[in-house]
C-alpha cells in the first residue's frame, strides 16, 4: 500500500481546538447564508440564492484565548426543504434562531423554529440548549423596521432567556460578535454542566459573557 498523502491538505491543529457544530435556522430570506458568509469570508452577496437544503462552512474563532472550530450548517428556510434540513439538527452544539428585523412574520416564526429544532435535535431532556436569537438586517431604515429590539428581548425573556443580538450581514454589524456570543453562551452552559475537562482547557467559568446593555448588542439572558 502506497503512503497516504496528507500533503496539500491543510490539517487543522488537532485537539487543542474544540469542535462546535452550529446550525442556523430561520425563515427563508432572513439572511442566514449572508450571515454565515460574512462571518466566514467577510463577504456579502446582495443577490444570494435561496439555499438548497443546507450549506456548510467552517471557521476557527478565538475567544478568551481558546480556539474553537465552528462547523456551521446553514439550513434552507423555505418550507419545502423542511424534511431535508431536519436531519442536520442532530448533534448540534449551538443553534442560531434568525429573523429579519424588517420581517415580522420571520420573528413570529421563531417559536416554530425553536420547537422544530428541539424536536429533531435529540437534545438531552431537561437540558438548556445554547440558542442565540439573531435579528438580522438592522441596516434597514427605521420605517422598514417591523420588530423592535425591546420586543425581541421580551420574547427571549419568555422563551428560556437566550441571548439576543441584532446584526447586519450587509454592513458587517455584530456578525463576529454574534458568533462569539453564541460560543460564549455554549461555554457558559457547558461549564454549568460541570463536565470534567480533559487536558488544558481553559476554565470557562472565567469567561461568562458580560452583561452589555446597549441594545444593538443586547445580550439578554443567562442571568441566574
Amino acid at each position, binding site marked *: *500500500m502506497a503512503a497516504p498523502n496528507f500533503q496539500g491538505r491543510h*490539517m487543522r491543529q*488537532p485537539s487543542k481546538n474544540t469542535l462546535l457544530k452550529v446550525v442556523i435556522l430561520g425563515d427563508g430570506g432572513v439572511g442566514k447564508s449572508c450571515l454565515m458568509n460574512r462571518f466566514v469570508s467577510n463577504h456579502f452577496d446582495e443577490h444570494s440564492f435561496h439555499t438548497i437544503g443546507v450549506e456548510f462552512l467552517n471557521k476557527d474563532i478565538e475567544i478568551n484565548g481558546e480556539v474553537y472550530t465552528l*462547523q456551521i450548517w446553514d439550513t434552507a428556510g423555505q418550507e419545502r426543504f423542511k424534511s431535508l434540513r*431536519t436531519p442536520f439538527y442532530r*448533534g448540534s452544539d449551538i443553534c442560531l434562531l434568525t429573523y429579519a428585523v424588517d420581517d415580522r412574520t420571520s420573528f413570529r416564526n421563531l417559536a416554530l423554529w425553536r420547537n422544530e429544532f428541539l424536536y429533531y435535535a435529540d437534545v*438531552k431532556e431537561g437540558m438548556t440548549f445554547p440558542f442565540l436569537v439573531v435579528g438580522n438586517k438592522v441596516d434597514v431604515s427605521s420605517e422598514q423596521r417591523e420588530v423592535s429590539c425591546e420586543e425581541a428581548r421580551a420574547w427571549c425573556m419568555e422563551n428560556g432567556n437566550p441571548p439576543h443580538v441584532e446584526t447586519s450581514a450587509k454592513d458587517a454589524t455584530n456578525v463576529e460578535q454574534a458568533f462569539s456570543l453564541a460560543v460564549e453562551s455554549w461555554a457558559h452552559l457547558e461549564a454549568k454542566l460541570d463536565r470534567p475537562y480533559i487536558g488544558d482547557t481553559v476554565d470557562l467559568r472565567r469567561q461568562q459573557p458580560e452583561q452589555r446593555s446597549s441594545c444593538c448588542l443586547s445580550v439578554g439572558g443567562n442571568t441566574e
Partner: protein
Amino acid sequence: MEEDMWRQFYEKVKESESKKEKTEHDIRIQELDGGFFEKFGTLLKEQHAHQETGGMALVCEEEQPENVELELEVPEESGGVGMALQDSDSEPEESDKHEFITDAMGWNIEELYSEVLYEILHIVGCDASAEEERTPLFCYLQETFKLDHEKHNHLLEMARAKEAPNILLNVEIIEAKDLKPKDANGLSDPFCTLFLTSSVAHRYNTSVKQETLSPVWEEHFSLPVENPADDVLCVEVWDFDPAETVREKMMKIGAVKGVKGLRKLMKEIAVTASTGKHDNELVGSATLPLKNIPASGQTLWCSLEKKGKSKKQGDVKIRLSFSSEKNSHVASQEHRHLLRLMLLHELENSKVEPYQWDGKFSQSAEIILTQHLVQCGLSKVAVTLAKWIEFASVHVDHPLSFIIFSILLQKLVKPLQKGFVTEEEEKLFWEAAKKILPSCFNGIRKIRKLTHSDKSTLHQLSGILSILSQLSTLHPPEGTDLFPPSIYGWLTVNEDEPNCDIRATLYDAVTQGAEDWFSHILENNKTTDSPEEAYLNHLIQVTQLVRTDLQRAIEFHDKIFQQSFNFPYAKTLYKVYESKVAELVEPVVTEVCKSLKPLKFNHGAGDGIYDNDRLLMGTTLFELYLIVQRFAVLGTGLCPVDSEIFLSHNFHLWFHAGVAQWLDIALYKALQRIKKAVEIDHLVPVDSSVKYSSSAVDTLAIFYQIKIFWKQLAWPDVEGSYTFVAKIIDDICRCSVFYADQMSEKVEGMGESQNVYEKKFEVTNEWCLAINNIDYVRQSIQAFVGELGMEEIVTSLANFRSQTEADHCQRTLQLVIDNAVDTVGNKILELLEKVAEKMAPAINRFLLEGAELLQQENNCMDRLMKYLDDNLLTLHSHLNTDNFSRILAIIWENLSHTMYELVESNLERKRPPTFFLNLHETLKILVGFFKQGDEKNDTNNPAILEQMEHLLQLYGMETWELIHQYHLERREEQMAMEAATHGLLTVRMQFVEDLLRIEVLNARNLHPMDTNGSCDPYVKIHLLPEEKFTTITKPRTKTHKKTMFPLYDEYFTLHLTSEQQELENGLIMFTVKDQDFLGTNEFLGEAFVAFSDVPKTDMTTGLEQMAQVHLKLSRPTRQDSEVYRALESRHDKLARDFIKKEKPKFLPS
C-alpha cells in the same frame, strides 16, 4: 491511490460474496441487529423479510433473477389452460346453448344422412374408390349420426335406389308473421315443415325459433321433384312442443353438461325427427301447387290456414325456384350441419380437452367432407365460412383452439373486404364472430390464470389477439351490435348504442382484468389496520404482487399484444395499477410519515435508548418505498415520455419525510455495528500484506452498506439527493470519528508495564494498528463519497437550477468532505499525540538521568537512545510514512521541550561549560536521530531548537570566546543602527603585508555624560579577541580638550602575525573616552570594524588613498542578551573582570 484502495476493498467484498459464505466474524456483527443492513440492502430479495427467520442474507447481492419472484405467487392454483379460460361468465353461455340446440332441432337428419350416403356411393376422385374402403366411412357416418342399423340399412337402400333427380325445387323459408300464439306465455316456438304431397314422408324442417310470433329463418331446402305438373308443396308452421318450452327442456338436459348433454339432445331430436312422433302443435299450413310457380322463380307471402279455423293463422314468406342442381345455399347449409355433427363426434371420440382441438378431423371425416363439398360444388370461401360458423357454434359449449379461428379468419378477411360473399353469408359470419368474441375477451380478462410460461397458452393468446385484430379490420353490417350489454356487462361504453369497437372493448377487458386482479389481491391479502407496521407490510405485499403481475405482463404478454394487435398491454395495465397503488399507498404513507419521530440515540449509540417500534416502522416503510419504486421504474420503462404517469414521477414525495428517518436509522445501525466491530477486533493484521485489522475492514463494509442503501434509495429528486448526500457524508464523518474514539478506547492501557523501579510505556503493535485502522477509514472517505454519485447530482442540479447554484452545492459538498477527512485526520493526530504523551515520561526520565551523568561524558544517553530506538522501530515498521513522520515530529517536539527545560534548569544551576558542551553533543545526536534524511520536514519547532542550540553553544564556550561573541554581537548592533546617536568616528584602515595601518581622523557630535556638557575625548584601539593579540600594545590618540569634534589625524601601524591577520572573526574596536584626570575615564562610545572589512593593498598604495570610514559610535544596550547573561553567570576572573568593565558602559535606563 485511494481509488486503488477502494477497488481492492470492493473486490474483497465481491470475493467474499462469491464465496457466498460468511465468516463467523460477519455473522457476529450481523447478529447484533438481525442483519439490518443486509436486509436494508437486500430487501427485495426477500419478498417477505419477516418470513425469513434465518437472516442469512448475503452482504451485497446486486440483482436477483426475476423468475425467483415470479413463482412466488398466483394465489389461486390454476388447473391448466382450459379451466382458466372456461371459468367465464355462465349466463351468455346458456343463451348460446339454447340457440345451438334449437338450431339443431330443425335439422333434417335423415335427409342429410341419405344425402351423404348417396355421395359416398357416388364417390368422386381417388379418396375411397374401392368398395371395401367405403365400409369404414359408413360406420363412421352411422356413429356420427347416431342411427341404429335398421335405419341405416333402410336409408342406405334408399340411397342406392336413388337416382340423380332431374329437377329440384329450391325453397327458402324466409320468415313468418302474425302467427297465432300457442304457448301459455302468448308466444310460440315456431318451426316449419315442408314436403311435397307426392312424398309426405319426406319432410324437411327448419330450425325452431324461440318465443316469437314473427320468426325469421332464411333457411334453404332443395326438394327433388319428379312430377312438377301435379305435385303440391305444403308448408306447415308448428309450435315446438308447447307442453314443454325449450327453456324447460333445456333445464332437463342442462344437468348433463358439455358435449355429452348435446349428444343426448341430438339423439332425442333425431328420434323425434325420424319417427315424426312429437308433441308439437300445428299453427297452420299453406299449400302451393307447383304448376303455379313461374320458371324464373317467385317470392311470396302465403297465408296459413288450419282445419276448423276460419281465421288466418298467420303468413309465411317463401322464395321458390327450380333448378337442375342443388342450390348452393342448401349445399352450404348441409355442409354446415355435416360439419357440426362430425365435429361433435370428433370431440366426443377423441376426448380432446377444451381449447385443444386443432381443426384436424379423422381421415374418414375428411373424406366425407371433401366428397360433400366437391359434389355440391361448394367454393373454398363457402367451406371456410361454414367452418367458421359451425366451429363458433361448438366453441360456445366446447371451446376450440383459437388458432383455428385465426387461421380461418385469415382466409375470410379478403373475401369479406372485397364483398365476395353474399349479404346473408356476411350476416352469418358476424353472428359466428359474436359467438367467438366472448371467449376471446374472457381469455384476456382471465389472462392471469394462464400458466404464463407455457408456450401453448401464449400461442392461444396470440390466436385471440390475431382474431381481434383481423376482425377489427372488417366492418360489420349496419346495426350490428358486437358487444351486447347483456353479455358484456363489464363494458364501460354506452349501453344503448350498438358497439363494434373491438379495440375499445379490448381496452376495457384489459382494464377490467387488471382491476379484478387488484381486488383479488386485496381480498386475498387482508389484514387488520393495526398495528400500522403490519398494515405497511400488507401494502408491501400488495404492491409486490401487482408489480409481479406487471412484470409478467411485460415479460410474456406485452410483446404478443403489441405484435398481434399493436396494443400497449403492459402500459394499459400499468396505468390501472398505478392509480390503484397510489390510491391505496399514498394516504397511508403520508400518515405514517407525519407520525414519524426522530430516533433518540445521541447519547451513546448502542445503549438501546432508541424506540424499537420506530426502527421497525422506518425499516418497513423503506421496504415499501423500494417496492413502490421498483414498480414505478417499470412504469417509466413502459412510458418514458408520458406525462400522464403521475406515480413514476412523484411517488417519492410521499416518502419525503421518511428519508430523514432512514438516514437516522442507517447512522444508528452503523454506529452500533462499528462498536461491535471494534469489540471483536483482535488487533492483528487481516492478512500479512496489510497493516490494519478486522474492524477497519468491517467499518468500510458498513460504509459500503450505507452506499448500497443510498443506491437503492435512488432518490429521484435532485435537491433532496444533494442534501442527503451531504448528510451521508456528515454521517460517515461521525461514524469515522466514533470509530476512532472506540479504537483509541480499546488500546488505552496497552503497552504499559510497571516494575519496582519504574512505570514504563512501550509502543505496541496494537497501538500502531489502531492508528492505521483509523487512517485506513479516513482514506476511504473521499473514495466512498465518489461512489455516492456526487457528480451526477451536481450535473443535474446545474440543469435543474443553475450552474452557479450547482457549483455552490459542489463546493459545499467538498467542504463537508474535507471537514470529514480533516476531522478524522485530527483524530489520528490525537492518537499519535497520545502515544507520544505516553512515551514522554520515560523519555524525560532517561534524558534527565543521562544529563546527570553528562560530566562523566561517555555514552550516558544510552538508555534514552535504546528506548527511542526500540519504540520508533515499532512505529516505523507498522505506521505508514506519513504517520510515522508525524509521530516523529510530535515526539521530537516533546523531546525538545524537555530538553529545553533541562538546559534552562541547568543554566540556573550554573553548570560549567563542559556540561553544556556535552549536552550540545547529545542534542546534535538527537537531532540527527530524528531528522534522518528528512531535512525538508523540520518545520516543527525550529525556534526552540535554534534557541536551544544557541544557548548550548554559548554556555559551552570558553569565557574569552563568549566575550568575543559579545563583541561580535555588538558589531551587529552597530551595523543595525539607523542614526548615529552617540556621534561618529572617522578613520582610514588598510592591511599592507604584515601591517595594519590605521588613521584616526576625527570624531564628531560626541555625547558627553558630564553635567558641564563638554569633554576631553581620546580614542583607544583594541584588536579582538584580546587573547589573540596579547603581544600588541593597544594604541591610543592624544586627548583633545573641551571639544565634541576632536580632530586627531594620527597614524598607527601595527605589526601582525599572519595567523593574527587571518583570524576569522578578528575585530578592531575603537573606544572613545572622556579623560578624567581625577577619576576613571568616562566611556563615550565605541565602534567595531571587522578585519574582513579592512581593505588589503600592496605597498604602493598609501593610507591617504584609502576611503574615509565613518563609524557610528554606540553604547551597549542589551544587558538581557543571552551572551551577556552567560558572561554574568560565569564565576571566572576573566568573566568577572569583563562584566566589571562592561557594566558601566550601559546607560541607566
